[in-house]
């Protein structure tokens, strides 16, 4: 009994720490650059926002989280192989963030992209999970 109570108390103490560290839910818009800067079929890392901006073949944009959906390592873009390769358990992702090799269970998360006056802007406060890639996820001009 006493042990259970102490355990519960401990948990709620730990829990309080988590509540205090909730990031404030404000928009945080990162400006990635003007549309012309990106060539279709390439991936550009945007270090300030900790994401990748993928410019798809048809010129539409997708902001991809760099966190592997398997267990959270940070995935680098491999220019030569033309895919994302996770160093931790070897998952690979395509340009659109789709899984090419397991163990990752779903595509890389995305952030909403907006194009205002030819400038690409990404809202990094909202992470969007998805099961597969659909063209509607990409933003075009």
């Amino acid at each position, binding site marked *: 009994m006493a042990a259970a109570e102490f355990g519960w108390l401990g948990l709620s103490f730990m829990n309080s720490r988590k509540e205090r560290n909730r990031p404030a839910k404000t928009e945080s818009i990162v400006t990635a650059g003007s549309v012309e800067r990106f060539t279709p079929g390439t991936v550009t890392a945007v270090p300030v926002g900790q994401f990748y901006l993928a410019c798809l073949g048809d010129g539409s944009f997708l902001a991809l989280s760099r966190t592997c959906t398997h*267990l959270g390592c940070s995935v680098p873009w491999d220019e030569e192989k033309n895919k994302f390769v996770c160093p931790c358990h070897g998952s690979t992702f395509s340009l659109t963030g789709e899984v090419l090799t397991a163990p990752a269970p779903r595509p890389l998360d995305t952030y909403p992209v907006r194009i205002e006056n030819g400038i690409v802007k990404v809202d990094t406060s909202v992470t969007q999970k998805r099961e597969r890639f659909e063209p509607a996820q990409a933003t075009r001009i």
Partner: protein
Amino acid sequence: MKQSRRSITDLILHLHPHTVPRETLRVSLSWGLGGMAAVLVGLLFLTGILQLFVYQSSVHQAYASVLILTREVPFGLWVRNIHHWSANLLVVAAVLHLLRVALTGAFGQGRRLNWVVGLFLLFLLLSANFTGYLLPWDQLAYWAVTICTSMLGYIPICGPWLLELFRGGSEIGGPTLANFFVLHVAFIPGSLFVLMLWHFWLVRRAGGLVQVKKDEQVPVDRVPTVPDLVVREAAFGLLLIAFVLILAIVWDAPLLEQANPGMSPNPAKAPWYFLGFQELLLHLHPVFATLVWPLMGALAFLCVPFWADSSLPTGVWFGSARGRTLAVWTSAVGAGATLALVLTDNLLLQSAAPVSNTLMTRGLLPTGLLIALLAGLYFLLVRKLKYTRAETVMAGIILTLVVLTACTIIGVWFRGPEMHLSWP
């Protein structure tokens, strides 16, 4: 002088009975593994306290304080190395101790509870090692902890909640370090201490170490604890301490660059004692690798003493000569099969097109196969080859440990960049 010596003897006799059966002094019965584990825990306590004077548990200062410890504090490097090596050896000693207990039939009647306490101790010391791993806040630490805490996220229903609980927020950062620090220096050592005392007391209540069953009429040949047992314990303990101290002079504990949340090292490996697990991660769907399989394993180990007649005859290694042959075969087959499976699956992974529905193909299917295989083996051994249940259970325990060891070896030496198979 006389007086103080008496009081020391009294203290020893609080922990030990007055006399012990001569037979249990035989080194080859227990290899002193439990005692070794206790000595290592002692070393860990001492070196841990010393390091607490220097270490600072904030994201900005942790790495620097470890550098100060290793570079400026007299003997700081050595103390850190001793802590590191004791922790690593402790995992080895504890697992071997578990194996010894299983192979000499020491979890039967009267010792069941102690087996369970022992398993909890093993769990605690693994968590101690793991929480300690984060404290230096270097690349190794940061990514190993990222991976391991992410695993929690796959637990159905309460997973995401647990994940945030341990991380102290949605990302790894200051609060995570603070949480792990408290767990590592207060919660875990405290629990470890209590459980260890309980563990020792239960050994004593069960009449000391296991012995070969004899006929009741013949009185057991007993020798006094002081000096016969104590001298042996002291010799073993001092030898071990000397070994660790030398090890800590020769090899330094690793320390990479400061943690960088933007870049995972390639390959990013967990500490070696988790690499067996990591191998599972490469082959199975995460829910099965992080939750279902470990849970099945843990439950099986917890329940095994409560299955009637599952313990070998006491005090004889492998129960009998026949048991020994079975053990050797199990180890060989287990190691071979693991290697074959890893290689085949590696080919599959590389050739296959993007797979959908991995929950089926890499989750339920292999789990079903595993259960069928184990049931089949049990049937074969018990019904066809007429092994006893205890011998079969022993084979199962050996098989589990052999598979884990094989995976660990593959993980440590044969996994290169991006975790592809490669030569060391």
